[in-house]
């Protein structure tokens, strides 16, 4: 099947430092793919290159909505244009809009799928009002999906930690992505919350029919969740394969535990 994300020879230099060195990666429709590797391996840089925060030094990033339009090249697009194409992401540290309610946070995610501007806001024609009603309804629906219905009108900064994480996912989903990029979604979660996250991510994949690419250090979560795993070290891809293959891959063990362990 045509991949939804196709990365060719992605390279990123920061001055003399090569943070990414010719990385190839692909994600297929409705697939959960994990990107793992020791700290400083270039995983977050990889995300930043794909989502338009950095412009890669070399290589290509292609993406296509499954069954939709032809492949689009993402290099050089601005982050909001990448989001418009259908890629959404979350961050390692929580990046909610703290002084807005949970509902408003999700509604911001709808921003790129709606269009009424200042003029519409002043005259409030039927189109503006319908669009607003739809935005509110869809946002409520998403909050319910991530089990946040009880926090709808709560300020984002007042939510418990696990709920803030799920709110970020809801906001990302609001942009109608076909690929969700999660940067360490389980960071700082307790085992119970991690378990719920595992269930939530699987449910999102099944119900929304989207693909998920995640960076994660919690190996238990990675192994149970992923269809395929890519491993990076020092900016290079050192392995790819199913969880079973990765578990026994000597390169991977070396990268994590050092030479002597092998």
């Amino acid at each position, binding site marked *: 099947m045509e991949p939804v994300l196709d990365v060719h020879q992605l390279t990123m230099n920061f001055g003399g430092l090569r943070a990414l060195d010719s990385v190839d990666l692909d994600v297929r429709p409705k697939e959960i793919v994990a990107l793992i590797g020791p700290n400083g391996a270039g995983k977050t840089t990889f995300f930043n290159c794909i*989502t338009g*925060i950095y412009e890669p030094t070399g290589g290509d990033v292609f993406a296509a909505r499954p069954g939709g339009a032809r492949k689009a090249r993402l290099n050089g697009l*601005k*982050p*909001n244009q990448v*989001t*418009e194409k259908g890629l*959404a*992401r979350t*961050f390692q540290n929580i*990046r*909610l*809009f*703290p*002084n*807005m309610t949970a509902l*408003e946070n999700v*509604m*911001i*995610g709808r*921003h*790129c*799928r*709606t269009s*009424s*501007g*200042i003029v519409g*806001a002043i005259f409030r024609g039927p189109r503006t009002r319908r669009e*607003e009603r739809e*935005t509110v309804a869809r946002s409520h629906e998403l909050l319910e999906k991530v089990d946040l219905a009880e926090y709808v009108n709560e300020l984002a900064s007042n939510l418990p930690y696990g709920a803030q994480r799920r709110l970020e996912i809801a*906001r*990302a989903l*609001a*942009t109608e992505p076909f690929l969700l990029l999660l940067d360490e979604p389980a960071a700082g979660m307790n085992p119970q919350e991690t378990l719920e996250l595992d269930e939530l991510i699987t449910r999102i994949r099944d119900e929304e029919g989207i693909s998920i690419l995640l960076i994660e250090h919690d190996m238990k979560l990675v192994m149970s969740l992923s269809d395929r795993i890519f491993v990076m070290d020092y900016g290079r891809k050192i392995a790819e394969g199913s969880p079973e293959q990765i578990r026994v891959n000597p390169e991977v063990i070396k990268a994590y535990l050092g030479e002597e362990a092998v």
Partner: protein
Amino acid sequence: MEYFLELFLGGLTRGSIYALIALGYTMVYGIIQLINFAHGEIYMIGAFTALIVANVLTLNGMQGIAVLVIAAVAALVWSSAYGYTVEKIAYKPLRDAPRLSPLISAIGMSIFLQNYVLLAQTSDFVSFPSLIPDFAFMDPVAHIMSSAELVIVATTVVVMILLNLLIKYTRMGKAMRATAQDKTMAVLSGVNVNRVISTTFVIGSALAAVGGVLIASHIGQINFFIGFIAGIKAFTAAVLGGIGSIPGAALGGLVLGLTESFATGYVSSDYEDVFAFVLLVLILIFRPAGILGRSTTQKV
């Protein structure tokens, strides 16, 4: 008592104008942490535009409130265009530069616009027609509050309410708040931040233009330099209230206007500006973040 009331209402009027201009400073600061020193000039350009349009209309035999409305709308549109363009030319290319650079280019823009109007118009004070008519129903209280003052205060209140609704409830308002809180995340959520910033400049400029038309018509004369004084005062008001806070700008404007009015009335008009800035110094000593501003801890 009557004298007190007169001073109070005078201060309210003055404060309304400061608040209208201060909103532009505070909105822009809230979104891109830039003190837009060219903002006072936008206000001045608004007043000049209104003057030209009003003169043309009057020469063609138009009269009454229609002249005010058309002149004000023209000023609003023209000033917004200036605000939009200034942002694109002077600030957007410096978006990722150190914070001092756009500040310098703001001062440059301010000087440029002043001198441009000086060349294109005149260095003298020109008289501005009093476009706000005297309402008959205001006659009994005219010795305390003029019709012009009433119009200024009422317009400001309406504009503030509209602005508040816009920011609280509309799609663009949400995008503005999101951009102010976390620009990167706003972009990643699909918000076109450049458009949000442009809109902020346009709204701020429009408010300044409204202030410019109203006060020029009240005071009766303008020149190319009025933007500087008004800009500094409004900036003071914004800092007083807590820069970045919209209710703060309104409150700061009122506090400043009332202080000046009472100081002029009870002490001496020679010290008008002294009192304004003494107030600023006091607030900065005891509440550095402004009256409504929240002090932010710098994260390292």
